[in-house]
Structure formats: C-alpha cells, structure tokens
C-alpha cells in the first residue's frame, strides 16, 4: 500500500507540473533551432526533382559541428554571441529549387561561399555550375566541407512564421566575429 501511495503521489506531482497546452496527437519531440549562427559540415547533397514544383532541386543536409551562437545584448549594450546549448549534432536542411535565372544565380552564389585550402578563394570555380554533369561532381566535392549557416525567423502578415537558412561566407563570418 505504501508503494502504491508513493507512486500515485509522485505521478500526481509530475502530471500537475506538466503543461499539456501544446500537446496533440500530431506533436513530436522535435524543437526548431533557435535563431543564430551554426558551424556545420555538409553530410550529403542530392540533385533531384522537386516533388511540389517538378523543377530541378539541389538538397543539402548539414550536421552542426558545435553548439550554435545566438546574438544577445549585454549590460553595456554590446551585441555578443552566446552559445546555444544542445544544438551540436542537430541537422539543418537547405533545398535550392532551380526554376529560373535568379534562383540559379542565388544557388551558385552560395556554392562559391565554400572555401578550399586558400582562405578567401572558393573551393569550386563558377565553371562547376555550367552543366548538370559537372554540377553533380561538384556537389560530391562539397561533402565534408564546413560553413556557417545563419538560421533566422520572420513573422508573416498572417502571424505565421517562416524560417530561413542562409549560408555565410568565411569572409563574412570573420567580419561578424564568429568563432573560426
């Protein structure tokens, strides 16, 4: 009887503490990455057709190599980078849907942000993005490369949120004083 009493008592305490407001049958344990900067490594790349639009699409999967950094203001009003705990090893996905001239330029701009051994020089030349054949080879070369991804959230007019993942060049990362 004593054991049962302890069980019910503990369980009641736990249930009282738990906020079920946002819980539904569709809930998952997944939590969105907070806004901030994440040092990532390219896990895999994939060239395929977008399921929704049918346009060519390049998919990237990144793994976060160390805890990310959010931007906060200290007591002297200085913007400082604060580590975001438990974000190491989380995944980030970026899809580039190539539907027109503008989207291709945006994609190539991002690809040129990956640097090789020489700081300031792109790992891949622009010519790597001129045919689908060389593009596939180029994407293979990016696997294992590191780069910062900036995650940011904007609020839409209808109060829904959109999350944006943008690659940050190493030159920009240095200017922003991100840990290198």
């Amino acid at each position: 009887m004593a054991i049962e009493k302890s069980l019910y008592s503990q369980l009641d305490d736990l249930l009282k503490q738990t906020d079920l407001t946002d819980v539904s049958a569709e809930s998952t344990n997944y939590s969105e990455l907070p806004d901030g900067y994440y040092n990532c490594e390219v896990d895999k790349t994939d060239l395929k057709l977008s399921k929704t639009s049918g346009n060519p699409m390049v998919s990237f999967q990144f793994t976060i190599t160390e805890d990310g950094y959010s931007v906060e203001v200290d007591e002297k009003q200085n913007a400082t980078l604060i580590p975001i705990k438990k974000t190491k090893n989380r995944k980030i996905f970026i899809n580039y849907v190539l539907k027109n001239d503008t989207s291709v330029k945006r994609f190539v701009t991002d690809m040129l942000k990956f640097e090789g051994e020489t700081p300031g020089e792109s790992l891949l030349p622009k010519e790597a993005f001129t045919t689908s054949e060389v593009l596939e080879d180029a994407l293979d070369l990016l696997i294992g490369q590191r780069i910062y991804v900036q995650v940011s959230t904007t609020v839409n007019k209808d109060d829904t949120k959109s999350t944006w993942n943008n690659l940050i060049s190493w030159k920009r990362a240095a200017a922003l004083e991100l840990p290198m």
Partner: protein
Amino acid sequence: MNAIDTIDRITNTNLIFSDLKYCMVDKNKKPYKINGEMAKPNCIDDFVPFEDLFLCTDLDSYAGIGVSIQASQICAIDVDHCFSVANDISSATEIAKSILNKFDKIAYCEFSFSGTGLRILFRQPIIENYIDKYYIKNKNYGIEFYQPTDSYRYVTVTGNVIANNYIQMFDDNLTNITFEFLNTYMLRQHKKKNETVAEKIENRSFEDLMKIVKFKYLTNVKFQDVWYSQAPGSGKDESERDFYLLSYLYENITQDKDLIKQIFESSPYFKSKDYKHICKWNNQNFRYYNYIYNIIKK
C-alpha cells in the same frame, strides 16, 4: 526598327508641331547628340528641334529618338507593361484603359519603345513640392511621372500613335485631371516611423549607435547582406542599396542626419564604392545624400 522609321512615323503626328527638343538613342536607350557624341540629359543644348535631326549623318545606326523633358518643357507619364500584345490597344490592362480614358482626348498618347508600354505627353504648370506628396516612380503600378523641374530626364518617342493630340498647355480644369491620375496612382505612402528606437533629438554617440548597428546586422539577414555587400557600380542597383541602407538607419538606429551619414560612410558597403560613386556622394556638399535624407524624412 531604327531612327529613320521613327522619324518617318513622327512626321505624321502632332509631335512635330509641339516644339519638342530631340536626341538620338541607341538600342540601350542611351542619348546621343546629332553629331554622334553622348548627350547629357542635364544639358538642354544637346537636344535639338525635330528638323535638325536630319542633320545627323548616320540616322540608321540609331535605334530611335528621344525627347528631353526639361528642354521641351513637357510632362510625361510612363506606364510599363500595360499591353499584353505589343502595339495592340485591345490588349490594354485595366490601369492602361483607366489612364487613357483620362488623357486620350487631351494629351498625346503613344505606344512605348517595346510596344507594351504607354507614354503620354502634355504640358501643364509645375506642381510645386511634387515629391512631398507623390512618387516619381510608383513600382506598385509600374508608372512614372516626370515634369520639367530639375529632373533632367529624357523619354523615347516612337510615333506609334494611340491619341494624336497636340501637346498643349493644360488649364486648371485639365490640370485637375492630372491630379486625379496622381492621387489614384502616385500618392506617396507615408511610413510609420519607429519612434521608440530612433530618437529625434540624438543624445547617443556614434560608438553607442554602432553597437546597435552591430546587433542589427547580426540579426537581420537583409540588412547584413547590404551592409557587407560590394557596391556594384554603374548600371546596377547601387542607388537602391544606398536608399535601403540610409532609410534602414533612419528607421532603426537614429534620425540624426550627420550620424546617419557617419554610420553609412563607415559601412563596408560604402568603403567598396568606386571612385565615380564616391564623387557622386561628395558632390556639391553631399547633395545626393541631402536629397535621399529629405525623402526618407517625409
């Protein structure tokens, strides 16, 4: 189509009786004097009467003809992409129909260079302080309005007539029609200013404000992109970037004119400007900045 075809069509329009001043234009719509030198839009002597165009010895090498707003003392309305089929009046959009309904009895109207735009020319008294109330270019509608006040613009003319009216000086009644048009399509939207962030009387130092700038570029992707972007130089969108950065600083950092200028000049973007654009910035005691600041302030 070249300048000879255009001149041929213009001879059948009332443009030749309208005392306009012309230049030649190439396929990129760049202006040339009849002697082949580049025309300066701010030099009214570079534009000549219609009959002088025949003194040009290589008319067929030009793509068309332009008219100076300032030298001709005319007003012009440009409506972009308002005909789905080039030079076909029946393919007009509702906006084009509405504007033509106002002007096709009182002004000269024609198809634009591409055939998909509308151009309207007329004369009327100058609207004072125009920029305080109206846009020169309203991107939402793709409409531009020019009057001969320091804008030193030129527009191409094609002779592809929609309404062949003489370019007359509007009286008060006709000018009211222009105001109806302006109030419908060109009325400036005044932005709400962020009073809590940007203070009218600035007590903070440049260094204090740069701390806020740093926070902003670390957290705002677009601002960061432009702040750190390479100034693109002539023929691109450098003026738009200038305007974006300066208005962002005004709305989010400070309203102090000198401090905004100091912050802007400290940006990597400003430091990447080429010599020509640095000169443009410094010219006539920062006239360009004064102009932008006055627009932002309103």
